[in-house]
């Protein structure tokens, strides 16, 4: 079967988007009050389809190389495929764990499933874009979807507040990002990432480029909740529904990191010294503030929100590394972080339920006796976040800091690793709380019954964290191959509108 490049390059996105539309359209057809689970299964099917599409892309990319489409504004390469897979996996887990989440509470769960798919489409689009315009569009698609999802616990004041905070601040940051794009265009005369570098070399206004970099970093920094643009994170994560947090704390961040990697390493390699110094500081600040903020939290979701800030900091440390190291380390970290974080929130989804009472750490006392499996899984994910060996988090941290060390950033490494030591404190307190002996607890009012799809998803995530921790080889190889793409200078990169559509032979 021969597909046109335009179809093939964005195949996963198409699949997701179409499924989303179908779900959206099917939603009104289902009787109000009846279960929306079938729509969830449909969404899941669509996601699996997009995984299949991605794998298909991979086989093609392996045999004939990178796919370009739409006048070179998007491309499917190993880099995008890696992130596609990460995003798709996160979506699968989110869908599985939230199949039963809305049962009995929300009559519009179908929209939720559709929004997840649309958001994923946007994120995937971000990773495959090689044109700032497309990046922006992808970013907005994913953002708008997540804005809505953040407020999906209808009638809960906190949820609405989370949505408005996320929305206002997100738009605010988007404006910065957009301004950065404008200045890039001004400095280089192009918005194609691949041509930025050459445009920059000929630029008469290098200062504009610097400001542009700063603006882009600010915009993306918001999305990945890097300090000092992290302020929204705790509030939004606290208010948003747990499965949504699981999604929005991982997949959009993965996409945003992918974009940042592409723009910085692909578009501004010559300014590496400047932006790596900037990211050095942001990374150190993020991990420190994230960990310090989490230290005193009693609300578990809020604590994990701060922890995700810290993880963004660790991940940003990878950007200081040399291109090859940095990209593969960041890619691996993204995958590992996504796995453990989505896992942790999947467990929380099961325990907290829709109403999310009893989010306090003390409410988890004795959880190990009531739900040994859930507690063990939670502990496992938390240990992975600490970076205990034979979990994904360990290798992730190792690669990141090994990259930073290789680039000579010894002190960043020291700060990062000491931070990871401080971080143990709050993770362990949570684990200790779960494993402490206390018979009375608010959670006992709501007995937890884990449905099999959710159990399956948890099992898959745990397996992923374990495999990434013991045999990181294959994922790492994928990440390393992925790292080749963004840095490849395309010779005679076509200006966006002049480029001719290429057809796969």
């Amino acid at each position, binding site marked *: 079967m021969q597909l046109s490049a335009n179809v093939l390059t964005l195949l996963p996105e198409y699949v997701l988007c179409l499924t989303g539309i179908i779900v959206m359209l099917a939603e009104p057809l289902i009787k109000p009050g009846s279960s929306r689970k079938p729509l969830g299964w449909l969404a899941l099917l669509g996601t699996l389809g997009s995984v299949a599409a991605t794998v298909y892309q991979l086989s093609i990319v392996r045999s004939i190389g990178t796919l370009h489409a739409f006048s070179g504004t998007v491309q499917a390469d190993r880099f995008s495929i890696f992130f596609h897979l990460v995003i798709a996996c996160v979506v699968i887990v989110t869908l599985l764990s939230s199949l039963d989440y809305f049962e009995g509470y929300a009559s519009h769960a179908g929209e939720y499933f559709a929004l997840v798919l649309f958001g994923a489409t946007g994120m995937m689009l971000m990773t495959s874009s090689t044109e700032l315009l497309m990046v922006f569009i992808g970013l907005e698609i994913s953002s708008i979807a997540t804005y809505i999802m953040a407020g999906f616990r209808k009638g809960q004041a906190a949820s609405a507040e989370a949505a*408005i*905070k996320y929305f*206002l*601040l997100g738009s*605010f*940051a988007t404006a*910065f990002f957009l301004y950065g794009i404008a200045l890039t265009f001004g400095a280089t005369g192009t918005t194609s990432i691949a041509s930025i570098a050459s445009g920059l070399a000929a630029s008469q206004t*290098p*200062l504009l480029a*610097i*400001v542009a*970099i*700063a*603006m882009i*970093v*600010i915009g993306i920094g*918001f999305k990945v909740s890097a*300090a*000092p*643009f992290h*302020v*929204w994170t*705790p*509030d939004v994560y606290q208010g948003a529904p747990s499965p949504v947090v699981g999604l929005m704390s991982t997949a959009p961040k993965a996409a945003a990191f992918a974009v940042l990697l592409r723009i910085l390493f692909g578009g501004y390699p010559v300014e590496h010294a*400047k932006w790596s*110094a*900037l990211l050095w500081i942001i990374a150190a600040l993020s991990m420190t*503030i994230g960990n*310090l*903020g989490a*230290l*005193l939290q009693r609300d578990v979701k809020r604590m994990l929100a701060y922890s995700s800030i810290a993880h963004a900091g660790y991940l940003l440390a990878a950007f200081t590394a040399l291109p090859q190291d940095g990209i593969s380390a960041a890619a691996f970290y993204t995958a590992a972080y996504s796995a453990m974080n989505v896992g942790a929130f999947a467990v929380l989804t099961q325990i907290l339920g829709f109403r999310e009472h009893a989010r306090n750490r003390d409410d988890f006392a004795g959880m190990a006796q009531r739900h040994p499996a859930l507690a063990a899984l939670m502990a496992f994910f938390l240990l992975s976040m600490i970076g205990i060996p034979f979990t994904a988090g360990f290798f992730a941290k190792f690669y990141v800091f090994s990259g930073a060390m290789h680039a000579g950033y010894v002190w960043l490494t020291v700060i990062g690793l000491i931070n990871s030591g*401080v971080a143990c404190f709050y993770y362990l307190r949570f684990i200790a709380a779960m494993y402490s002996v206390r018979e009375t607890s608010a959670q006992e009012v709501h007995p937890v019954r884990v449905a099999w799809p959710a159990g399956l998803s948890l099992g898959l995530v745990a397996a992923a964290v374990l495999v990434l921790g013991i045999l990181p080889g294959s994922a790492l190889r994928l990440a390393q191959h992925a790292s080749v793409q963004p840095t490849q200078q395309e010779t005679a990169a076509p200006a966006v509108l002049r480029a001719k559509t290429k057809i796969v032979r």
Partner: protein
Amino acid sequence: MNPNYLWLIPVLPFAGFLINGTLGRKLARPAVAGIALLFTAIPALLVAWLWSTMLSTGALTMSVTSRSWITVPGFHVNFAFAVDHLTLIMLAVVTGVGFLIHIYSAGYMAHEEGYWRFFAYLNLFMFFMLVLVLAANFLLLFVGWEGVGLASYLLIGFYFTKDSAANAGKKAFVVNRIGDFGFLLAMFLIIAHFGSLSFGDVFAAVNAHPAWQGGFLTAIALLLLVGAAGKSAQLPLYVWLPDAMEGPTPVSALIHAATMVTAGVYMVCRTHVIFDRSPLALSVVAIIGAATAIFAATIGMVQHDIKRVLAYSTVSQLGYMFLGCGVAAYSAAVFHLMTHAFFKALLFLAAGSVIHALSGEQDMRLMGGLKKRIPVTYWTMTAGVIAIAGIPPLAGFFSKDEILYRTFAFEANPMLGKLLWAVGLLTAGLTSFYMFRLWYKTFAGEERFDEAHLGQAHAVVHADEHPAGHDEGQDTSHQGHHGVHESPWIMLAPLCILALLSIIGGWIGIPQALGGSNHFEHFLDPVFAATTHAENAVNADQVSHSMELVLAAVSVLVALIGWFVARIFYLKKPGTLGARFGNSALYKLVANKYWVDEAYDATIVQPTVIGSRILLWGFVENVLVNGSGFVSAAITRLFASVTRKMQSGNIRSYAGWLAVGAAIILIAMTASALHIH
């Protein structure tokens, strides 16, 4: 004799220990005693065999080396035993006296709880003591050294339910450890300088370097002396021995009189090659010995507990032996060691018999007039008292006199020699005094005990097994033996044998001045030849035989004066001495043992404990070590709360943070760009 049989000598008692220690609780008492005796008797026979070999050939040296015990690159220590004439004497004393005391114990302890335990410990002691005397290197000597300390600890604390006994055991071990500390350091120095701990290697190296005088050898010798002073209860480490009397009396006889406490003397003699090279160390040995002798004797004069008198007397006699070593009269020291083993074991066993007769009473003020009631004990003890008092022809006279004479003739430092001789002489008088005091107070005069009361006390004792504060624990025994009674023959037989030895034991060392040939000294010549003959034999010629006779006469006279004084105050006019001096400051000082224990407690123990409680525990541990963690945690917490404050919950302030962050980044980036371009 095949040297490999040497292994058997210590190993058999150890086997006895293991058997009694593991199975003893389930065995019948005769079986326990039988095993213990058997495993002591065979080594004694082996030693006798050694002696017969020696006597038939005229001399004996023997050694046996096993595989390596400790090996590190460049250094190794073997299990190695060696027998020379010094060892032979020690072996004879240890196995002989040890065996006799085992027999005695079978009677004495017959009704005790923990019979098996007692014999197991006793055998353990025999094992270590034999290792000590047989060892052919410092480390193996140290094994025995520590081991006898352990056995002593266990036996002193035999009545462990009594706090005083448990305390005494602990004190003995810890004070001995102070000595061991010196011994260990000495060994480290020896290793550093000789690379070996074998006696043969070390002594050969010293002998091969006549130029070595003083210097590191003094350091080694003085450290060894610390060890010896700990084990042999010399100043300033003597404090444990009087307390050690908490143990059963046979233990006091065997360990704290005849054998273990003489290990220090043995060690100094064994390492005399090193001491000989250090006049300073020798002088210190002599001074410590003399000082201890008179110091302990003065305390012994005013004690009321019969065993404590003997204990101080032991300390004092050990001082004599050190004095002998200090003036390089090693063979005299060993001679006194041997005779002392006989008469002091005898005295202790006899005292045990007295205590046995009085159902556990040890206070001499509650004795008296026992001569008729326990005649065998009386007569044997009399032999012991005369022997220790130094009245010829009993054993003590010859050995003590030899030491005094040698001290007087000490050539290396004549002034010191004369001074120490005077001290020694005075001590001899005091010894005679307090021993006869003991004798009179125990056996002569009126009966000050209340026989009926003894019985009652007995009943009380049985009601509440081990009352705190009661002096001796073995009074829980002897049911049905109310009233004063002579001990059974199983106890009396060893007494008689030892009495005989106390009488004739000195005759093998009669000096030439008194018409003898001093067999003993010649016998030890192979060991001490280098010293005795090269240096001191010359002395002996200088100070003529007539001088020696005069000195002997003086010391006999002094001993007789001591006796006479004791006779006046304790037989003729009892009570007069106490009436006159009972309230004097001097008496109180001596009666309280010069407050040495209290002084140690106040100057060493308490400052250490209080200092560590306040400084180490209070400050270092809780402020520095734990506080540092606490402070860093508090600082982190402070920053954390600041971070929380950033999170006001207000969207506008969040936007403010964003804007400020953006502004800073923009300014910084622009500035850096402008700076570069």
